[in-house]
């Protein structure tokens, strides 16, 4: 059935997914030494274990400190070696990591048991999903429990499962949908219970006919008429939240709001599968499916790998390097971030490892001045005017950049792709967004300082007034009433 919605602008890109899809999804070997970044994509969590501690598979090792980090569980059974700075995929290039030496036994934490789903109410389910450390596995790594709780508060009507996977090279969701359609449907139904949604739509791009077929088969076997599978045209970035919801429901998320405020919730199919795997065995989120691909990889494939597995080990498991690797990218070719080294461990946010050779990297050529052709504006799926935004960003006036919708840029890279002057717009916008965030933090700090200063001033005034009164009182006593007292 065709989805009812409207389609935002987008690009038809070469998908590069066939090579990795030649192999079935398989489990990667557990690492002998797991390196788990405390920042799994959403800020640091606080470690709750120390060097020398014995941990099992699934033992909690870090809890959310503040913000929206999620609980992290040990992916292996063994001894914590250290908590130290290691290279990570974070923008800073390194961060604190828990290093665990595996004893190879893979013994599960005895506390892990399959949840009694029937006896759990929606709130309990949300708390347990939060506790299981399940996060958005599409790449945002936002804690699923938090998202479900917000959706429940806003009584969301319609859950949309994102199986679009529009970005070139990435095919981990495709592999999951083909092989674990039942899991995805189970996870979807659990999430529907938690947020109170009355219907769910699984949206898949039409270049994945096997996945659509598998989901439809599983869905009709289940006979649940609240579930629907729709095929979207393969148009990058159909898998971005805004364009996806627009395509599936015809509703546009306001720029200053989020999907639950218009009764929608969007979750990745990988997240649904993680919820299902927790529901079946009680196992927390300690692994994910990751695509290891690129011309620089011998046998590209999708691996179910433990969080904390070094990327070098994952590449080795896929036939090792082939040719001369030029660039290692975490994520796809459009929105991925380049890594300086493969001595980085897998995080919950990493959906793809792309080892690119010269074959994959189209030379971009020199950047030239903007000729105001407007191609970027017609390509922008967020409906922005990238050329105007670029001008505002380069002139450094953040207020103007804000008026042109800097905060609404989804960093999809479409403008870069179509720009005939080869201007790296997205990276400029990304840098400007970081700058705007820093500026906002400064403003907040200044505001706090102003409040403290005003309190300080009030306190000084009160003290001065109290002193004056005490002085008056003392003088009054000295003049008359206190005459009866004798000095020592």
């Amino acid at each position, binding site marked *: 059935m065709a989805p009812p919605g409207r389609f935002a602008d987008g690009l038809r890109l070469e998908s590069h997914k066939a090579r990795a899809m030649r192999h079935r999804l398989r489990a990667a070997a557990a690492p002998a030494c797991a390196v788990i970044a405390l920042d799994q994509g959403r800020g640091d969590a606080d470690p709750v274990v120390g060097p020398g501690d014995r941990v099992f598979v699934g033992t909690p090792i870090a809890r959310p400190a503040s913000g929206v980090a999620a609980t992290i569980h040990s992916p292996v059974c063994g001894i914590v070696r250290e908590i130290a700075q290691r290279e990570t995929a974070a923008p800073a290039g390194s961060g604190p990591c828990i290093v665990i030496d595996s004893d190879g036994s893979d013994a599960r934490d005895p506390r892990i048991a399959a949840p009694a789903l029937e006896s759990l109410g929606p709130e309990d389910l949300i708390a347990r999903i939060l506790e299981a450390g399940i996060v958005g596995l599409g790449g945002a790594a936002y804690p699923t429990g938090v998202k479900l709780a917000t959706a429940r508060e806003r009584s969301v009507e319609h859950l949309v499962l994102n199986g679009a996977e529009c970005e070139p090279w990435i095919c981990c969701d495709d592999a999951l949908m083909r092989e674990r359609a039942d899991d995805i449907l189970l996870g979807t139904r659990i999430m529907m219970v938690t947020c109170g949604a009355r219907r769910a739509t699984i949206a898949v791009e039409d270049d994945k006919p096997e996945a659509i077929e598998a989901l439809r088969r599983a869905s009709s076997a289940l006979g649940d008429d609240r579930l629907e599978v729709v095929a979207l045209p393969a148009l990058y970035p159909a898998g971005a939240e805004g364009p996806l919801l627009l395509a599936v429901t015809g509703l546009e998320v306001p720029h200053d709001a989020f999907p639950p405020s218009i009764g929608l919730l969007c979750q990745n199919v990988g997240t649904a599968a993680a919820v299902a795997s927790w529901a079946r065995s009680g196992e927390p989120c300690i692994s994910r499916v990751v695509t290891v691909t690129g011309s620089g990889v011998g046998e590209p494939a999708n691996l179910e790998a433990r969080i904390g597995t070094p990327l070098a080990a994952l590449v080795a498991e896929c036939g090792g390097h082939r040719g001369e690797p030029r660039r290692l990218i975490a994520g796809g070719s459009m929105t991925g971030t380049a890594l300086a080294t493969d001595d980085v461990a897998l995080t919950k946010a990493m959906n793809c490892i792309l080892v690119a050779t010269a074959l994959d990297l189209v030379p971009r050529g020199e950047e030239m001045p903007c000729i105001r052709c407007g191609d970027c504006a017609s390509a922008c799926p967020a409906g922005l005017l990238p050329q105007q935004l670029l001008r505002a960003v380069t002139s450094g006036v*953040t207020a103007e950049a804000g008026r042109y919708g800097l905060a609404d840029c989804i960093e999809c890279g479409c403008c870069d792709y179509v720009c005939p002057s080869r201007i790296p717009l997205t990276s400029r916008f990304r840098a400007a967004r970081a700058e705007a965030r820093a*500026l906002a933090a400064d403003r907040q700090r*200044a*505001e706090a300082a*102003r409040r*403290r200063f005003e309190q300080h001033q009030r306190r000084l005034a009160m003290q001065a007034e109290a002193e004056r009164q005490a002085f008056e009182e003392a003088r009054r006593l000295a003049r008359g009433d206190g005459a009866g007292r004798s000095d020592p």
Partner: protein
Amino acid sequence: MSDPTVLPAIAVGAAFAAGMGAALGWAATRLRPDEDRLPEAINALLPQTQCGQCRYPGCRPYAEAIARGEADIDQCPPGGEATVHALADLLGRKAKPVDPQYGPVSQRVVAVIDEERCIGCALCLPACPVDAIIGAPRFMHTVIGSHCTGCGLCVPPCPVDCIELR
């Protein structure tokens, strides 16, 4: 003045001019820009270090001076380029670099007390405009890093020079 048709035209013109004059007069008194709000808006853009480098005794007085047109927008070194840009945007003026006579624009700093040398005299406590120093007489003092604005006002009162901006 022989053509009688010109008279209504003059009358209409005069009435129009009088009407517009009255409207403008009313607007000038009733729709006056809210003068109390401007210093507030300017103050909200200043870094609130209360350091006095602008030659005014704090951020609010400087904001009022800008609003009165006495002070320029380039007198705030702690705010740097970002503050000048924000002020220029608010006031519809041209941005310019911070005037070096008011001090160098530097990275964000915080005061750090060398605890070995602190004698617990408590002289720096009242100097801090944001109450970011904890201490009591004859007890070691320390700076709450997250509250410190790096204004440097605690440096001169210290008799043993144990406070440093880093």
